[in-house]
């Protein structure tokens, strides 16, 4: 098992290297020169050249990439030697005057809090609704769950988020002035909760709908398995069949989906973070794309998102083996 994890980790490392290279290539190939964005009114070619030097864009792409890798391993100096970022350095962001690693580390607790809360909420809602729908297949609980699925999946996150935000603001449940300001859960649990609850709901409803459908489908599929018939022939009650015999098997597709979704969420939930003004990785990334064209932040957030995705892919595979003894031994 350890050997397997080691192998997978190596492969994931290679994938990350490839992703970082591709990200570099994409931004290099784009027709936009970040140096001319911050050039200002009296923009001259000399100013652009100076900016390129400041941003480290005045050397060939492979040298830039080499510097990036070097920074990652031993740290590096940026902005004409003015700033030092220690290893592992993902680069230096000129528009925000910070080392990208420091910046992302600052933002991560926000994204993590958003992800964990939303994930718990949507798994609870999604799985229990899916189970009930499957248990009462074709009857009113199933129909109600189906209505929820249709509503949840067709409601765009930004619309749901906005409606919740405006509704909660008008009802004085949240103060728009302080909404999104980070408070640690241990220093102010209520403030923390108020800050995140509507963002959690926003993310959870759409995903819960997906998980309701997934759980229902998986449970129904499993219910036609021979071993379910065996359990029934043993005289096991329907609820026990569902929760012990069926669910454990039905979990496999749910877990693999959930792992990837959670991993993806840790890379930042752009729309929800933006709407609720939560200063997480997604908000940083979208500002870097739309406003400041901040290449180091883009590379950093892309890599972080990809890394989480890969890590959770691996976690899912390991989790499988705890679920299914056949995988565990082989």
């Amino acid at each position, binding site marked *: 098992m350890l050997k397997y994890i080691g192998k997978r980790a190596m492969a994931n490392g290679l994938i990350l290297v490839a992703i970082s290279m591709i990200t570099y290539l994409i931004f290099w190939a784009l027709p936009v020169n970040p140096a001319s964005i911050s050039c200002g009114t009296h923009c001259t070619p000399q100013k652009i050249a100076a900016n390129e030097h400041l941003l480290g864009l005045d050397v060939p792409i492979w040298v830039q990439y080499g510097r990036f890798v070097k920074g990652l391993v031993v740290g590096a100096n940026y902005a004409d030697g003015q700033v030092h970022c220690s290893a592992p350095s993902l680069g230096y962001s000129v528009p925000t005057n910070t080392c990208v690693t420091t910046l992302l580390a600052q933002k991560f607790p926000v994204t993590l809090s958003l992800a964990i809360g939303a994930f718990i909420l949507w798994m609870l809602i999604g799985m229990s609704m899916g189970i009930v729908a499957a248990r009462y297949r074709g009857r009113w609980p199933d129909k109600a769950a189906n209505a929820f699925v249709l509503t949840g999946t067709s409601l765009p996150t930004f619309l749901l988020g906005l409606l919740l935000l405006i509704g909660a603001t008008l009802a004085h449940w949240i103060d728009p002035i302080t909404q999104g300001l980070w408070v640690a859960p241990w220093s102010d649990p209520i403030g923390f909760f108020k800050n995140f609850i509507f963002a959690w709901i926003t993310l959870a409803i759409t995903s819960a709908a997906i998980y309701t459908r997934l759980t229902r489908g998986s449970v129904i599929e499993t219910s036609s398995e*021979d*071993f379910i018939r*065996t359990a*029934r022939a*043993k*005289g*096991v009650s329907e609820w026990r069949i569902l929760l012990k015999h069926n669910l454990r098997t039905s979990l496999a597709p749910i877990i693999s989906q959930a792992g990837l979704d959670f991993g993806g969420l840790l890379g930042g939930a752009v729309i929800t973070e933006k709407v609720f003004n939560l200063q997480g990785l997604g908000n940083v990334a979208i500002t870097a794309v739309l406003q400041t064209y901040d290449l180091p932040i883009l590379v950093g957030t892309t890599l972080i998102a990809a890394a989480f995705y890969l890590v959770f892919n691996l976690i899912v595979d390991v989790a499988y083996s705890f679920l*299914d003894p056949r995988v565990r031994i082989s």
Partner: protein
Amino acid sequence: MSRLLEVKDLSVSFPTDAGVVRATQNLSFHLDRGETLAIVGESGSGKSVSSMAIMGLHNPGRTEISGEINLNFGENNLEVVSAPEEKIRAIRGKNVAMIFQDPMSSLHPYYSIGNQLTESWLIHNGGNLDSKTAKAKAWERAVEMLDLVGIPDAGRRVKEFPHQFSGGMRQRVMIALALINGPDLLIADEPTTALDVTVQAQILGLLKDMQKEFNMGVILITHDLGVVAEVSDRINVMYAGKLVEEGTVDDIFYRTSHPYTQGLLNSIPRVDSGVAEKLVAIPGQPPSLIALPKGCAFSPRCEYVRQVSSHDCKVEIPDSIEVASGHSRKCFLKETYLPAGKGR
């Protein structure tokens, strides 16, 4: 003394979008303790459906059942068709047990066989499923059962998972699972079909031993007449949801009375003749259970249709006629017995 199992006029049908599937029609048969009844027929003839009905395993929302299924276990008698689900569940796995065709898919892949065996025992004997003493007792019982069905080193293997067993061993586990509560009636649905030929005989032998051990009534469902001859007392031959011939093993094998039974016999190699024979398949396909042919359901495939002058097989439906005591058929033919071994 009343019979262990008495099925009267059992009809099971499934309404579907394409029409009503008439899986069995007006089925009547019985079984006593210590007796083995084989139900034989092609797939789709209704043999599994009737055994599921006995277990009360049909989804009430999507099945229409009429008739009676009377079970008599001494103290708790039950009519399955009309009984509430909780009452049926109480006898399922305790008084009536079942083993299935594919032992791999019929055991839960994620739980150890000990877990699966003890669950069955605990449900019917343990009272509290989580009590430690009950659990310990259940594990003892599980090991005992594995030992009984001939699994070597049962104390160790009880902790293993189904995929760690060979096919034959898995079926032994299934048998242990079915018998753990000492049932009165065992339904074995194609118990040897998925197994190697050499293993088949062992499993049949085991079933026979177990029948003696527990004094059970056994219903053996199979499409394989070869299996039937060895272990059965009586045979029911089913075609398109109906019982077309019933009788003792000798009745069916040596005094074959229905053209379909004859077709079945012709399609199996006979071990006792010693002569190489040509195997003959029954021409045509079994009918759709949604749109059954008019008259005798077998008539489109029957080569004797032209020999029947008294009735039109394609219009009229033959009633059950007693050929001899305990031997009856549904056929208009004048000849009582059909030549065995040769079809035409």
